[in-house]
């Protein structure tokens, strides 16, 4: 009896539409595009800052437009999704064993949120938001 195993083709594109869990994964991964774009914007800001006050202020003024604000809100949304989706899986990467038991994952996740809030408040404070 001869063997003739059949190999099923796997779609290189569009596979993530097959399962909601793959879409969830891609929604996390796609955030890197928006976060990368924001990092480029920050680099532009630094470049304009190095060109002097007038250049930097015109750059800031350009960011005040409705489309800029909409774009920044979209980036913020994706950044929050990126942060929360990673925070929620941290217990997998860093389990904390105490004796024979493991610390429930919710405490590890909560610790990340707590540090995030404290750091965000510190940044806002330094930026003079309060």
């Amino acid at each position, binding site marked *: *009896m*001869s*063997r*003739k*195993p*059949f*190999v*099923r083709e*796997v779609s*290189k594109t569009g*596979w*993530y539409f*097959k*399962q909601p*869990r*793959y879409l969830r*994964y891609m929604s996390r*991964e796609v955030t890197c595009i928006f976060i990368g774009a924001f990092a480029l914007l920050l680099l532009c800001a630094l470049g304009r800052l190095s060109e002097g006050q007038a250049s930097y202020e015109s750059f800031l003024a350009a960011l005040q437009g409705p489309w800029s604000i909409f774009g920044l809100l979209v980036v913020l949304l994706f950044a929050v999704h990126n942060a929360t989706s990673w925070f929620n*899986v941290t*217990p*997998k*990467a*860093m*389990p904390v*064993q105490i*004796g*024979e*038991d*493991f610390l429930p994952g919710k405490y590890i996740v909560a610790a990340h949120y707590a540090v995030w809030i404290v750091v965000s408040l510190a940044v806002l404070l330094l930026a003079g938001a309060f």
Partner: protein
Amino acid sequence: MNTRIVELDVLRYDPETDSEPHFQHYSVPCAEEWVVLDALNAVKESIDPTLNYRWSCHMAVCGSCGMMINGEPKLSCHAFLRDYAGVIRVEPLANFPIERDLITVADDFIDKLKRVKPYLIPARNEPVPEGEYKQTPAQLMKYRQFSMCINCMLCYAACPEYALQPMFLGPAAIALAHRYNLDSRDGGRDERQEVIASHAGVWDCSFVGACSEVCPKAVDPAAALQQVKVASTIDWFKEHLLPGGGK
């Protein structure tokens, strides 16, 4: 016994006559408490004795009867018919070549399993008169959940990375390597690291997490892979930043 007619669409493939697989429909009288495997057994016993599939224990222990049921990797002995409405689509495990009907070729997984040395490699060979290697309950708990793996390969069928990059060692093999690395009696981590910390090892994993979601034994392979990434990264920093490579 309450019975109902269950409609099954089963993927069939005969390597001697078929150029590609095709679905075959069966209407099977089934008891309410049956699982998909029972329905397949009923097909084989009363309707079509040519249907081929693997099974053994019928109690989610042997890991033989993994299949795609409505597109989801499941143990067919663990998939209750009452949880499905309409026609139930039964296919061989995804991401593996089809040998015949619902039977897949598992050679790739078996080969990868061997490469990670999933057995105890004692750090030192103690003479028998000195007694057994002792372990505290806390040391046992460190790796216990990863030792529950039954090699059913559902995690490979769920993993899109394995589908796209067949060289990837995959969830179960790495989780089992991690299980032995975490064992206080074991001293084989360096040997396994060469395999699991390579590019085709943990670094091919992008943490989709599907492996853990489909595991019928509540093992968390995704956790094992992320822990191996953390430990391997620490190794790298030790090697490059500490005098003497941190040895």
